[in-house]
């Protein structure tokens, strides 16, 4: 029998707001002295109460809007009750029945290059836990991370191959960075993936009656490997006539295989109920409207990429590359603007930036155009080569150098002339002058 995978993803992203989700402690915990960013609220002391950080709510709405979700006019926080030493209150404040953003979608590309629409069930707001460190028989708890805002984005089980999963995760990471809501660094745990994986016979419409949750996997690569392995494991089991059940599994990178973490019997009953310490969340009570949040959002990467293709006639591959980060896209657009005035077209600019691997941190967009111009005039534009020519001119004309240093600065014209002569006029005299002056200083 042929089987097809059924995969759903849950993505947690830690927001980079100034303060925590339900108190005023700094949310910037990375690398800080343990337990210095804490207060009665995030330590779960008796009598402490949560208070909603509106900046986090705005970020969650941004994410929801970018994923084409509907923003619920009214939503509620609920308590997810379970015991773990890193969870000081004994419950996590989360959303369950009434999430903030519901019903979105995102287009991804599959393993055969096909477009697949992934439905987003929800994007909801919650809080992070503290961090445990185990060493030599003791466990230490750092509550600096306790209460840092998290947004959880849950898809419907719409993925059918791991290329889609990878593309989806990459797109979300890109989105979070574009929106500026998170650094979305997997290694630091800013962004965490969980996958629900099951398989069904090709042609079956209903969802399988089990699913395996893959958890605690901290890289895209490992997640893809774990899902691939899990699909093979499940198909093999079903072919042997085994019955699969609900369970949680982890990834062992050394053995390249998944392993059982928690079976169905050990599953938590989180006893969700409405958080009595917080009022209902009414979006119209925020200081800003959903419309103004929408307006404040940057152009999304996939919209930018589409525009680059349609308006600037780039290839899809070029457009995708140049919209990779907001900074690169902005650099490119600046350069295109500068190019317009000097009759350098967008495609030339795109090709130059991609082929020359232009470092946008050190080069200015206008310099890209200058270089393109010199190149098209057949001039030598390579910085190292120009440098070499200038050095040669200095070494070959010691008397001129001496005269220059004594104050006869006009001799520099003769030096430029010697370089022009040597190269057959293929240098920009102003550029050579700059380099010579620099060297003779």
């Amino acid at each position, binding site marked *: 029998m042929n089987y097809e995978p059924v995969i759903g993803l849950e993505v947690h992203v830690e927001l980079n707001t100034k303060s925590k989700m339900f108190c005023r402690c700094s949310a910037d915990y990375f690398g800080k002295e343990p337990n210095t960013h804490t207060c009665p609220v995030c330590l779960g002391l008796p009598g*402490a109460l949560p208070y909603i950080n509106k900046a986090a709510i705005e970020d969650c709405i941004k994410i929801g809007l970018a994923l084409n979700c509907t923003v619920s006019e009214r939503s509620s926080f609920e308590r997810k009750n379970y015991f773990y030493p890193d969870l000081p209150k004994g419950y996590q404040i989360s959303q369950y029945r009434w999430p903030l953003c519901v019903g979105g979608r995102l287009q991804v590309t599959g393993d055969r290059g096909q477009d697949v629409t992934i439905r987003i069930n929800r994007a909801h707001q919650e809080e992070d836990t503290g961090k445990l460190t185990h060493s030599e028989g003791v466990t230490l708890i750092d509550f600096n991370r306790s209460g840092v805002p998290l947004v959880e984005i849950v898809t419907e089980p719409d993925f059918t191959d791991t290329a889609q999963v990878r593309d989806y995760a990459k797109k979300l990471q890109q989105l979070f960075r574009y929106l500026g809501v998170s650094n979305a660094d997997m290694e630091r745990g800013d962004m965490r993936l969980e996958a629900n994986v099951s398989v069904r016979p090709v042609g079956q419409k209903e969802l399988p009656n089990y699913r395996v949750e893959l958890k605690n996997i901290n890289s895209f690569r490992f997640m893809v490997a774990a899902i691939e392995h899990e699909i093979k494991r499940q198909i093999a089991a079903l072919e042997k006539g085994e019955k699969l059940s609900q369970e949680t599994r982890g990834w062992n990178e050394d053995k390249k295989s998944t392993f059982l973490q928690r079976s169905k019997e050990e599953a938590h*009953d989180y006893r969700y109920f409405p958080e009595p310490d917080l009022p209902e969340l009414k979006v119209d009570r925020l200081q800003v409207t959903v419309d103004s949040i929408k307006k404040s959002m940057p152009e999304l990467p996939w919209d930018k990429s589409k525009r680059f293709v349609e308006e600037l006639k780039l290839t899809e591959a070029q457009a995708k590359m140049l919209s990779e980060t907001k900074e690169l896209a902005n650099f490119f657009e600046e350069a295109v603007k500068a190019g317009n005035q000097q009759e350098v077209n967008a495609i030339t600019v795109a090709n130059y930036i991609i082929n020359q691997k232009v470092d946008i941190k050190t080069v200015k967009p206008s310099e890209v155009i200058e270089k393109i111009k010199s190149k098209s005039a057949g001039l030598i534009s390579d910085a190292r080569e120009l440098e070499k020519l200038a050095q040669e001119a200095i070494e070959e004309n010691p008397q001129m150098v001496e005269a220059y240093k004594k104050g006869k600065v006009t001799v520099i014209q003769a030096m430029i002339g010697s370089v022009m002569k040597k190269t057959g006029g293929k240098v920009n005299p102003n550029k050579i002058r700059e380099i010579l002056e620099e060297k003779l200083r």
Partner: protein
Amino acid sequence: MNDITTLTLTETIEAIKQKKFSEEELNKAYLKKIAIINPKINSFLKIQKNSRGIPAAIKDAILTKGIKTTAGSKILSNFVPPYNATVIDKLLEQNISVIGKTNCDEFAMGGSGENSAFRPTKNPWDLNKVTGGSSSGSAAAIAADLSVFSLGSDTGGSIRQPASLCGVVGLKPTYGRVSRYGLIPMASSLDQIGPITKSVEDAALVLDWISGADSLDANCKDAKFSFTPSRWEPKLNGLKVGIPKEYFGEGLDPKVKAVIEEAIKKLEELEAEIVEISLPHSQYALAAYYIIVPSEVSSNMGRFDGIRFGLGRENLGQEVKRRIMLGTFALSSGYYDDYYAKAAKVRTLVKQDFEKAFDPLAGGVDVIVGPVSPTTAWNLGEKIDDPLKMYLSDIYTISANLAGIPGISLPCGFSPSTSSGQARLPVGLQILGKQWDEETILRVGFAYEQATKWHLQEPELVSRVESQESRQKGNKTGF
């Protein structure tokens, strides 16, 4: 002249202003009385020896920075809070000092004071009787004049019921009127801090001090109560008083009933219009309450794991464990809809009962009046092994918490004691008001109090100490 500890809060402030005595003398007088009477009634778990400020007794479920706060539980017997509850900060601004932390049922779970993990509080009117609870020590301390006023917390009657059983004034404000930040919660959606005082006026003044917005409690509204007694009149001038028939049925002690009926007559004499009303869902309130409360308790108690503060869970008492288990069950997957969700619906119906009764467009009443407790104080140990019987003593008070409305209990007479040799036990009158309308219930309470003066009655235990005092001092006490 009376001992200065018999003065009300407003009288005390006035006397200090007029330099009739100093703050130091005031504190000395109270501390002396505490030393004599507290060992008999156990109203304090911890006593703070101050010489400045006006003394207030604080329920031990309310956090006081640097002062051990146990919530009446062994699990917190070593817990010294690093911060003050918002109400404490607000009182400190008013030159109030904490004279002690008062005994209470463990984590406010109980209606008699006997669930305190340390010792039961005893009723100053009869040492064989309970004080009611859970704010047992806060009520007993005021009845015995061991503090000028106290703070309690009321989740299902925990201020009003002990105030009633101890013959003092107890006010549960509208939910959201007073910040809960720093109150160790029992059921977060119902808990509310309020004053226990020697007069209605005092309750209004303390409410003025402790109410108003708090950025640390998201459910606390920007709705400060303003103390304006000058607007209060001795007559009620046609004010409409509703008498819910459901509060006078089976289970109400006939002796208590007689006292309440007498009080209603008095309100009529004060020119109130008395009308019978119905709160049809009252009969389901208790059942809903005992689903919602344990559910929230089961979650709120999760943090008491002994990791960051406090001791291990083996230190929890029976009633606390009972509620944790009931609530854990009620919230379990598969049971949620049958229990918690249904109880939440009943809660809405109870709330609507009150909205209808108070609806001005439908000729609604201004206040609702009835008993606080179906009986007067019962014997220590009488109901402790029968939780259901204990729960029934909250039957007239829990609806106000479910609906979030304010309620006050004030002394309205006495019923003969059942134990031999003791004369009488206090009965409390409950006045319930519209959401955010503490003003009207206080005004009605004030008119009644001025016309009856029940609040000036003192337990024999206390007057005996006072007369001994004045004999020793050759009648030079006081001012």
